[in-house]
Structure formats: C-alpha cells, structure tokens
C-alpha cells in the first residue's frame, strides 16, 4: 500500500510518499510525525470527501491511513 503525506510549508505543499513494501519509506514518514509533534504541528488523515481526523504516530496505520496532512502550527493573531 502506498500513501502520501502533504506538509504545509512555505512551498505550499511538500509531498512525501511511502510504500509499505519498503520499510525505509515508512520510517521516513514516522520521522515526519516525530518532527511535526516536536514542532507542535497537528497531523490529519483524510477520512472522506472533505473530512479529516487527527492522527498521531501511535494511531497511524500506514496500510489504511494513506492520505496525511501536516498542518502548520496555529496561534492567536
């Protein structure tokens, strides 16, 4: 199973992919999770057309949660 994580950044969207047949790519995405968590950024998985759900490294299933977004950290303006 393959999947994509979209990282919202200054480039608008930096996409990284994984393939469960290649554990190294999955480990890279786990590192993306850890970096996002350290930066206080939330990660969402797409659950349907226009819906999402927060996901953490502990709850992420690379076989099922194949479309992820790392949102920018928000603060009151």
């Amino acid at each position, binding site marked *: 199973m393959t999947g994509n994580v979209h990282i*919202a950044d*200054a480039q*608008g969207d930096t996409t990284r992919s994984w393939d469960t047949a290649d554990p190294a790519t999955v480990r890279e995405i786990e590192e993306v999770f850890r970096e996002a968590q350290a930066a206080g950024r*939330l990660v969402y998985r797409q659950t349907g057309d226009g819906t999402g759900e927060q996901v953490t490294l502990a709850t992420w299933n690379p076989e099922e949660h194949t479309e992820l977004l790392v949102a920018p950290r928000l603060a*009151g303006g």
Partner: protein
Amino acid sequence: MPVVLWWWAAAAVVVVPLARLLVGPLRRSRDGLSRRHQARLRAEALLLAWLSPGQRRQYRARGWFEVTTTAGHRYRVYRGGVVRLDVRGSAYCIEAVSPVPIADEMLANKLLLETDERRFLATAHRFRYR
C-alpha cells in the same frame, strides 16, 4: 570626435555597469515572485483536495467556506480570519506561526475547527465586530 559621440560614449560608461548592477536583484525578485506564486497554487490545490464539495463551491465562488463543528456551531473561514455565524459579532484571529500561503492557513483552521473546536477556541484570539 563629434560631441554627440562623446555623449553616447559617456552614457554607455554609466548605463552599462548600472544595468549590470540592476539585473541581479531584478532577476532574484522575479524568481522570488514566481516561487511565491507556485507556492500559492500548490497550497490552493491542497486546500481544494481537502474541502467538501459544498465548501469547494463556496471557496471557488466567494473565496471563503463554512464549517460546521461536531457541536453544530457554524463558522466561516475567510482569508485571514474566522467568523462564528450562529453567535453574532464573534470573530477570531488565528494564524500560522510559520510562513505559509494563506490557503494552507485556511485548511489548518478548517481541520482544527472540525476535529477540535475547543482547541481552536483556546488558541484563537477572539474579538467582537459589528
């Protein structure tokens, strides 16, 4: 040598190095604008991919979209702010702490509202407007 030629030579001595000095910054400025434009396009494509069909229609037609939270509260997400629709006069200022295109910020607001309204309210700066 005629005076006109002297003038042309003098002008060339001044203008050519000046033009060379300007070319670099102008090119960098143009490249920066192009990069920002590409980033805006990528962020907007990402936003559209995560919006519901109804939100997509609203965004394309008006530049904003509405969100209904799990508690049934209605918000409108604008470029640069969020307004609560079912409580008159409540608006929220909330922004990304890192430099991202506005569409990325709108998407982050939508997802936070839909998945964790309490956290949104705890994070955003609320203000009243008429």
